[in-house]
């Protein structure tokens, strides 16, 4: 469904020898419906860069990203934005709350950006599944890092996207919540046929993946789920 073709991201950086370096180099990758692809790798190996390029958030210096037979970066901005809104659910690293909106309003935002009223019941179901339904009317400033992260996950899931891209979604969660989030993500893939890419450092995540990749200095290495 989502396919990276020869994808590279080159940055300018003042180093000793070469001023150019590749954060991501010649990556080919396909995400299919119903699969959970785990992406591991050391910090700085290019995982976030790759995820952003796959999400249509960062224009690659070389290569293409295909969604079915649409070349994402050949689309006009308005069309790409619409695709992001309807088909992608992205859980970025770090804070991603709109501070002036309540937790519930944040979760409803992707639907409202489509011009819909937003399905409150559905949103509350996701908040409940993630254990933060009681915070529905709180403002992001009042939330802890783990609560904010779960809000972002609820927001991505409530928009009912085809593709879920999660950048270390369990980084600041306790074990219990980590398990809950990972099984939710796996369920969306296996039961609802979404394509899921999960960037993680967590060894706990390994059992939830259907396929495992490893980034090494910008290069993508495939591994078997059991290896």
């Amino acid at each position, binding site marked *: 469904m989502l396919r990276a073709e020869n994808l590279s991201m080159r940055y300018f950086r003042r180093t000793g020898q070469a001023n150019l370096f590749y954060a991501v180099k010649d990556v080919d990758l396909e995400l299919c419906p119903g699969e959970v692809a785990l992406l591991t790798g050391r910090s700085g190996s290019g995982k976030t860069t790759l995820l952003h390029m796959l999400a249509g958030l960062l224009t690659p210096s070389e290569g293409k990203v295909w969604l079915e037979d649409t070349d994402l970066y050949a689309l006009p901005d308005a069309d790409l934005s619409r695709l*992001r809104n309807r088909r992608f659910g992205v859980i970025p690293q770090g804070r991603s709350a*709109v501070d002036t909106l309540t937790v519930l309003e944040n979760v409803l935002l992707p639907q409202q950006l489509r011009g819909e009223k937003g399905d409150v019941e559905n949103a509350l179901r996701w908040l409940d599944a993630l254990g933060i339904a009681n915070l529905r009317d709180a403002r992001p400033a009042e939330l802890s890092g783990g609560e904010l992260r779960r809000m972002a996950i609820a927001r991505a899931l409530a928009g009912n996207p085809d593709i879920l891209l999660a950048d270390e979604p369990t980084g600041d969660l306790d074990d219990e919540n980590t398990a809950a989030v990972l099984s939710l993500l796996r369920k969306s893939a296996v039961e609802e046929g979404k394509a899921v890419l999960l960037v993680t450092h967590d060894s706990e995540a390994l059992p939830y993946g259907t396929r495992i990749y490893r980034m090494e200095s910008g290069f993508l290495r495939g591994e078997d789920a059991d290896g």
Partner: protein
Amino acid sequence: MGTSRLPIKNLLRKPGRTAALVLLTALLAASVFGGSVVVGSLRSGLQSLEARLGADIIVMPAEAESKVSFKNMLLQGTTGAFYMDAAVLDEVRAAQGVQIAAPQTFLASLKADCCAIKVQIIGIDPDVDFTVKPWIDERYAQGLGDMEVAVGCKVTAGVGETLKIYEQYTRVVAKLAETGTGLDTAVYCNMDTMQKLLAAAEAKGVSHKISSGSDVISAVYVKVKDGADVAQVNSWLNGHIRKVTAVRARSMFTDVSDSLSGIARAARALIGAVWALALVILLVAFAMMIHERRREFAVLRLLGVSRRGLRAEILAETALCGLAGALLGVGVAALGVFPFTTLIETKLGLPYLTPDAGTLLALAGGTVLATLLVGLLAGAWAAARLSRTDPGATLREGA
């Protein structure tokens, strides 16, 4: 896409940030509007004075100080009286190039007489007067009769009331439109009434007689014939009529208009500087506000807001801030300028006439529009800078 209510929420739910931007905008709008109103008032004050006089040449007694007191009388409403033989009028009329010569006679009231302050009483000849007569006609077209007076807008007596001047009872038949000059505190009557008032003043010991004992006048306003050279007529009058000074009306006010245009120029420069500063400050303030929120905006992009949608969102916020600030600023400036009109007028010692409602509205509208435009410009600039970066790059920062 439906982001329409997001700007309002963003503004209302961050009241501190919003208030800071609105107040900053208000401050700039207030200085621009307030300054423009003061300059506009000075300009219309001088215009109204020139229009009221309408004379090319003014002939008055030669006494050295009369020219000064004459000007002060016109500009500030101080009282003054100086006299010359009424025969001067015929001499002026006989001069070549003179089209109309209209006499006026001045008398200062006593303080206790009629009004709270001493006022200048001005006698005119309704048959020939072209200076204040048209102005009186606007309010009282049938002409001033015996013992009837018209009063400037700042004289407290109202139409129909009786005004006691040197124990003589006069009836107020008209109250005149504001000029912003000393003429607003004067009382006008015809020459017959003036002769009676002069006699009454004489009885009270206020002397006005000149040696001969004949009728007196204070000034002759001259309009020259079309094509005649004002300077030539002026010097002829100076050379041929004894004990008078003929002054070109314009030259009498050149120092006033000089200082006025000096003030106007300074004010314009100041307003220009304020605008330039406003532009820079607003640009920086809005840009800082948007820079501080770049992560939030990148999240909106991530959730599917297009570049264009984001620009609309930012412009809506800055426009709303700009509009609120402009309205507040204009309102505050109006409260600061209009109640203190009299104070400004006396402090400046210059004719000061608040422009009419239409002009004020245009000025206010212009200020609001311009402020709004600056806000939009600042928003557009910041939004353009923002949309040059991919949201992915912003989201990485400090994550």
